[in-house]
């Protein structure tokens, strides 16, 4: 039972750690499927985290915090769109620039407004998304195997976690079962054909990056006022890049994206748990191995060992109507 308890604890931790990755990777999915590479996911997440923490602190409402996070993240997306869609700039350069802008701007504004070295003050109770105990969690707790899983992994998360998992089928449905999704994928594969059909490639791509901004707003908000209770300098700590790795690892498909994020979250949770513990027969395993695994797996995948990852064909290429 001891072992099972530990396993449940790690699973719960894995879910909590994978949610920001999930939102961000889904954001990247929409953007990249439309042919706009988005290295600026990290920056959008950070900006959204800052905005949501500020708004939640000032208004005392977590939902207004979420709204602010989404708003700021969409603004960042639009800047990315303006640079790389309208003005056909390099998408990677624009994304990297946004990352730096977000990193610097959040600290400067935070320092100017709150004078705490770029941090926001602690957000009080109502300004945060509290864990939701699902009905029957306490009653179920004593049922073997399923009980602890239900009570500690499925129940007891905050609303954003459930929204995150709900977004996966929604993203799948939008991308693969709607006209919008078909066109979105088409501008990522062959924008010329879409243009010939009389649909605006630019407007299509703009809508895709707006969706990406919307989703990044959720991940930033989750970091700042669900998982912790304040914004802290550079608190995204590279999660945007791990999400990108998850997106590639999942071959730009929504459901595999979810599993990739859960896997990466799980590895992170295992790394946290394994610290300083020795494995029978092997001894103490350096946790860096687990922390590096997501990247190693992605490299192995890109090298073609686990199937082939095909990026959207027109990804990274600004669309020029006529030469």
């Amino acid at each position, binding site marked *: 039972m001891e072992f099972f*308890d*530990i396993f449940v*604890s*790690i699973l*719960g*931790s894995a879910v*909590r*750690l994978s949610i920001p990755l999930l939102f961000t990777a889904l954001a990247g999915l929409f953007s990249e499927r439309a042919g706009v590479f988005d290295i600026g996911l990290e920056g959008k997440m950070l900006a959204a985290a800052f905005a949501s923490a500020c708004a939640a602190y000032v208004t005392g409402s977590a939902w207004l915090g979420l709204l602010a996070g989404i708003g700021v993240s969409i603004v960042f997306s639009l800047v990315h769109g303006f640079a790389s869609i309208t003005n056909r700039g390099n998408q990677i350069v624009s994304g990297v620039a946004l990352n730096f802008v977000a990193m610097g701007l959040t*600290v400067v504004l935070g320092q100017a407004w709150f*004078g*705490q*070295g*770029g*941090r926001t003050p*602690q957000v009080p109770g109502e300004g945060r998304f509290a864990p939701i105990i699902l009905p029957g969690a306490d009653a179920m707790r004593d049922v073997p195997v399923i009980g602890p899983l239900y009570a500690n992994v499925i129940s007891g998360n905050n609303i954003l976690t459930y929204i995150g998992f709900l977004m996966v089928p929604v993203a799948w449905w939008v991308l693969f079962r709607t006209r919008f999704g078909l066109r979105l994928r088409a501008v990522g594969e062959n924008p010329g054909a879409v243009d010939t059909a009389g649909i605006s490639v630019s407007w299509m791509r703009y809508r895709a990056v707006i969706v990406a901004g919307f989703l990044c707003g959720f991940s930033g908000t989750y*970091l700042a006022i669900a*998982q*912790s*209770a*304040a914004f*802290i*300098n*550079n*608190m995204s*700590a590279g999660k945007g890049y791990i999400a990108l790795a998850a997106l590639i690892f999942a071959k730009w498909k929504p459901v595999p994206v979810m599993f990739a994020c859960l896997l990466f979250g799980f590895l992170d*949770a295992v790394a*946290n*748990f394994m*610290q*300083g513990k020795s494995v029978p027969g092997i001894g103490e395993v350096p946790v*860096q191995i687990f922390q590096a695994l997501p990247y190693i797996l992605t490299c192995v995948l890109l090298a073609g060992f686990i199937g082939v990852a095909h990026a959207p064909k027109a990804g990274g290429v600004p669309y020029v109507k006529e030469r």
Partner: protein
Amino acid sequence: MKKTLLTLMAAAAMSATALAAEIKPALVYGTGGKFDKSFNEAAFGGAEQFKKETGVEYRDFEPTSDTQGEQAIRNFASRGFNPVVAVSFAWTSAMEKVAAEFPDTKFVIVDSVVDLPNVRSVVYKEEEGSYLVGLLAGMASQTGKVGFVGGMDIPLIRKFGCGYVQGVKAAKADATVFQNMVGTTGAAWNDPVRAGELTKNQIDQGADVVYAAAGASGLGVLQTAADNGKLGIGVDSNQNHLHPGKVLTSMVKRVDLAVYNAFKDTQEDKFSAGVLSLGVKEDGVTYAVDENNKALITPEMSEAVEKAKADIIAGTVKVHDYMSDNSCPN
């Protein structure tokens, strides 16, 4: 580590030249940022106190990356600031370089030792302070399991952990102590999410008191402990007020005194170079009790910790220093 009073006095005699009064003090923080509610904020507090008492303005700088420290220290020294105080072990090599270039400027480094005639190195016996809070943690724990979350995995932080373990074992010999580090890079001081997750792991394993020695990441530890109805222990500054009633105590490291004394001694022309090692005896480290945690410290705990304090001062209890041999007896 320890130098005799003689060297201190010799160094003091050397620097007894310039007149008092007009000084331009400067302060360089660690990468955790000025308002980390912990280590750097304590340094800031010392500088502010000096400013309030003497009216002398000081300049400070918050390096945001490990490469900016040297630049900042050199910049202050070359513009005639004196003394230049750098708080963080991260500026050790920077200090070695710059202090050699400006032999007439007085430097102070906190948390590390630089062996130069114009540098005062202030180090703390963190193991003693950690021993005291460990003792309290051991007595406050209902489950017999307590946790420790360190910031960056360096000997200095292991020293906190080692003293803490010894204190816990002194209270309950069979207690379990879970130890985790947030990371191995400077980013580990600013990652409250991972710190909180590590804390949650320890709580899931039964820990009910968790000691954070992790700069700003520690805020995540205290938050998670409070969210789960457990107790946290703060570090460096008095952090009891962050979650009243949910922070058992704080291991206070008087970084403010180091900064204040550096400024004051320079002003009064009493600056001495050499190593200052501050422990419980010198009031350099202690545990914090205020109105926020008074109810958590029972009379028995208070009595035991005061006794431990007296024993350490008297030398009857020796707390092992991790950095002396890079190992912990437990």
